């Protein structure tokens, strides 16, 4: 594995089996005495995360995000493939790997409610081999860093959900691990708490050189937080690119033309390099959308030809704007595609 990579997944595969006794089959409607069904949670996934990088793993519910996180943290054993953390293979050196990772799993019951945040950090610190003055100092620093210093002696059961989530992040960081895994860390949080956690992750990665894997359903958080994004659907990684590049690649090369009057768009669609043209409802005067090909040279020529065609048609051109793609649109487009068939036929 490369020295700069903090996490590497090579052809990681995981299938879970569910057993059903005397249950009605969805398609046939017939009951079977015993049935074993396979669910491909993770399907030959490959990706790497570098040190100092925030990697976002996005996907709909049941896509395989949490299973991937659990395989990296050793909670689930992969059927095939290898997972490396900081150069160590998880299955071979699991206990050593656990010293290098801090994990926040989905849900708030990752801390002990009758204890205070300080006592929780002390307890989990001891469980993870941090002790003495280092533990005390680190616990206070973390609580200060995350904004829970004034609540450090209040029982966790009295804290809000956001504060519990912040404490879960502190617990994950008590060993000062080089790798942080955050499974939906902002779910159910208010805007302030969500932003606070996002800012802390950026600080930890970009300023302190740690690597973070974040799974989230919040596209805004993903777009503003992650350096690179992987989209997982039906267990398979369908895209994995730097955030800007992902948005760029999936931009449809659609341009919005504002004119003084709407021309006959059929003629415009015949221009070489134009994929299609359609009217665009706009409050601020007539406008239409022009879809162009991906190839840059052809697209440039098509743009000039389209402008010439508009001039020929006697239209006054007011403005041209490129339609910006959002991560949400890219996500919806990629995850709406049907599950690809596996070569083994399953």
């Amino acid at each position, binding site marked *: 594995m490369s020295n700069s990579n903090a996490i590497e997944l090579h052809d990681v595969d995981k299938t*879970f089996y569910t057993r059903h006794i005397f249950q009605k089959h969805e398609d046939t409607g017939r009951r079977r005495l015993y049935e074993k069904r396979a669910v491909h949670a993770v399907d030959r996934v490959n990706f790497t995360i570098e040190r100092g990088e925030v990697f976002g793993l996005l996907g709909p519910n049941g896509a395989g995000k949490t299973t991937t996180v659990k395989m990296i943290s050793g909670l689930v054993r992969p059927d095939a493939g290898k997972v490396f953390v900081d150069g160590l293979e998880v299955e071979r050196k699991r206990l050593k790997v656990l010293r290098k990772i801090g*994990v926040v799993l989905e849900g708030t019951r990752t801390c002990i409610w009758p204890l205070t945040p300080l006592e929780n950090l002390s307890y989990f610190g001891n469980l993870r081999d941090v002790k003495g003055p280092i533990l005390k100092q680190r616990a206070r620093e973390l609580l200060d860093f995350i904004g829970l210093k004034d609540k450090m002696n209040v029982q966790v059961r009295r804290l809000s959900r956001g504060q519990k989530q912040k404490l879960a992040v502190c617990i994950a960081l008590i060993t000062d691990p080089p790798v942080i895994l955050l499974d939906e860390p902002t779910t159910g949080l208010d805007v302030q708490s969500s932003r606070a956690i996002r800012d802390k992750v950026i600080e930890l990665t970009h300023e302190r050189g740690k690597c973070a894997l974040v799974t989230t359903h919040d596209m805004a958080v993903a777009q503003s937080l992650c350096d690179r994004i992987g989209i997982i659907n039906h267990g398979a990684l369908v895209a994995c690119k730097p955030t800007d590049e992902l948005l760029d690649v999936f931009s449809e090369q659609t341009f919005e033309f504002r004119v003084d009057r709407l021309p006959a768009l059929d003629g415009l669609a015949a221009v070489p390099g134009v994929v299609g043209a359609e009217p665009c409802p706009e409050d601020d005067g007539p406008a239409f959308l022009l879809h162009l090909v991906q190839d840059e040279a052809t697209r440039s020529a098509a743009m000039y030809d389209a402008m010439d065609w508009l001039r020929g048609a006697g239209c006054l051109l007011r403005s041209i704007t490129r339609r910006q793609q959002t991560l949400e649109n890219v996500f919806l487009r990629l995850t709406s595609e049907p599950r690809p068939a596996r070569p083994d036929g399953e």
Partner: protein
Amino acid sequence: MGFFLVMKAELVRTFTIMRRYWFATLTGLIMGWGMLMVLIIGFMSGGGEMAERLAGEKATSGALGLVIGMFAFGIVGLFTQGLQGMARTGELEQVYMSPHGLVTNFLARSFVSALSAIFTSSIMLMLVAASVKGRLHADPLPTAAILFLTYVNLIGFGFMTGGLVLVFKQTGQVAVLIRLVLVGLAVVASEAVQDWPLVARGVAHALPITDAAICLKMVVVQGRGMGVFATSYFFFLLVSCGIWTSLGLTCFKIMENWSRDKGTLGAY
């Protein structure tokens, strides 16, 4: 070294919660003693053979059996219902991610639980003994040795049932039944076990509490001191310890890996 650090963490956690919820701890203690007393007084006031059997030494022996039974109930429960509860709340996954491993964590957790159970049970037992004018013999060495072996025995048994619960979460309910059997056995366990039918005798010796309870009653109630080490029950206890510990730890490791395969470690 790691075990002691984890044990320290568990000790601090347990006693912090006990101190914070002092009223619940105290009322639990009073209720435990009260229930034992009601049971004993109820039988004694009934008169006849039962009252004779439960007077003085017999009552203390019965109370000790019940206390040992409750100790077994608690220790095995930590691995069954306790583990189920931890899986339900997500705490199990957190503990699993400790670099000391699940076995060390559960060993430390059960050791602390045993310490606190021995502490509270001793107080209860002394109260019962004083109340029924029974007598307890203080022989620290044999008592400590038998308590330690009882703990090891129960831990081995607990690891086996806990391993099963890791994969087959619903077996936790069956474990309640097994725990109740352990309580019953601890109460009735006496040297009369040798007169039981062969199968019943075999089952009694195979379960981890019978010989431990008999040995402890010999030392604490009958005052046989070091003489207990020369009895066949002590030998059975030693053999049982070896078998249950190795079987339990092996089963737990296998089930832990199976649970990781099935993805049921943190699920209920």
